């Protein structure tokens, strides 16, 4: 099991710590604010209040033994850089850090951060994409040319089988999974639905209105498919 440290427990750090814990990871959460430490203390493995710019304090809690440290201090750029440098010097294998400006990101990259994240910018791009093309639920860019997208079944394809839809022939993209929502009645008698995944669907599988397709392919083909 990989061990993580999350330094800075603002909205971003809190979200990272919570998600990692929910996925069964061991999480050491650190912040200088007592209240923030208290907020996460009931779910993370260890929660410690300390000044993360203090190398001795970090050493004392055993930060050098974590596999990945996530530095989610954006506002105080100086502290963010200092903490990253300290972590690298202490031999932390992988450091992920949050940046608030491009220059901040550049400095973090230059001092050896494995992954720099710009949560606000990334979320802005995601929202803008979803507003521009409302039926795109999720998009992961694999490279500048290839992506994986999650999209609803276009109206002109609903009711056809995968092979009849011609998605692969017409757009050069592969359907890697289909998510179906199956209506049901719960034990308490409420109508609800369960989500069923069909990974690597067969050519004769039928696509229905409301199904979600996970597609992999060149951006050009995906864009054509999005436009219908």
């Amino acid at each position, binding site marked *: 099991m990989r061990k993580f440290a999350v330094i800075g427990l603002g909205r971003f750090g809190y979200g990272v710590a919570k998600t990692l814990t929910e996925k069964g990871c061991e999480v050491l959460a650190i912040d200088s604010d007592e209240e923030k430490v208290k907020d996460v203390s009931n779910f993370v493995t260890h929660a410690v209040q300390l000044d993360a710019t203090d190398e001795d304090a970090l050493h004392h809690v055993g930060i050098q033994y974590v596999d990945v440290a996530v530095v989610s201090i954006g506002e105080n750029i100086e502290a963010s850089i200092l903490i990253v440098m300290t972590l690298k010097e202490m031999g932390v294998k992988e450091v992920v850090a949050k940046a608030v400006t491009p220059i901040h990101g550049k400095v973090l990259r230059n001092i050896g951060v494995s992954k720099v994240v710009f949560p606000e910018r990334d979320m802005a791009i995601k929202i803008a994409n979803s507003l521009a093309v409302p039926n795109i639920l999720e998009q992961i860019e694999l490279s500048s040319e290839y992506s994986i997208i999650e999209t609803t079944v276009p109206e002109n394809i609903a009711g056809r089988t995968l092979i009849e839809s011609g998605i692969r022939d017409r757009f050069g993209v592969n359907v890697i999974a289909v998510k179906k929502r199956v209506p049901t009645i719960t034990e308490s008698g409420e109508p609800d*639905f369960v989500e069923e995944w069909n990974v690597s669907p067969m050519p004769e599988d039928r696509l229905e*209105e409301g199904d979600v397709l996970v597609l992999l392919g060149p951006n050009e083909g995906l864009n054509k498919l999005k436009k219908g």
Partner: protein
Amino acid sequence: MVKKEENDFNQKQADRKAKVKDLIEMGEFYFINQKWDNAIEVLGKAQKMEPNNPDVYYNLGIVYEMKNYLEEAKHMFEKALKIKPDHECSKKHLNKLVGT
């Protein structure tokens, strides 16, 4: 005379409630059978007859969610929770949709 009017009024209210219950059941039937547009139609009628029934909004919410009309679905779950803040099913679905 006043008593009779009161009885008539109560009777009408009871009839209306029974009719809304029937429409919700019909909506659930269409939902289970994946007839989304029929479900929206009957639940829309129920909504007009009883605009303060959280179950009507919850049912409309899940139908919209099935159709991937996520904004409409969110709006319906929010309406259900405004009327009944502890409507657990609406809470569960809205939590899932927030952030999509």
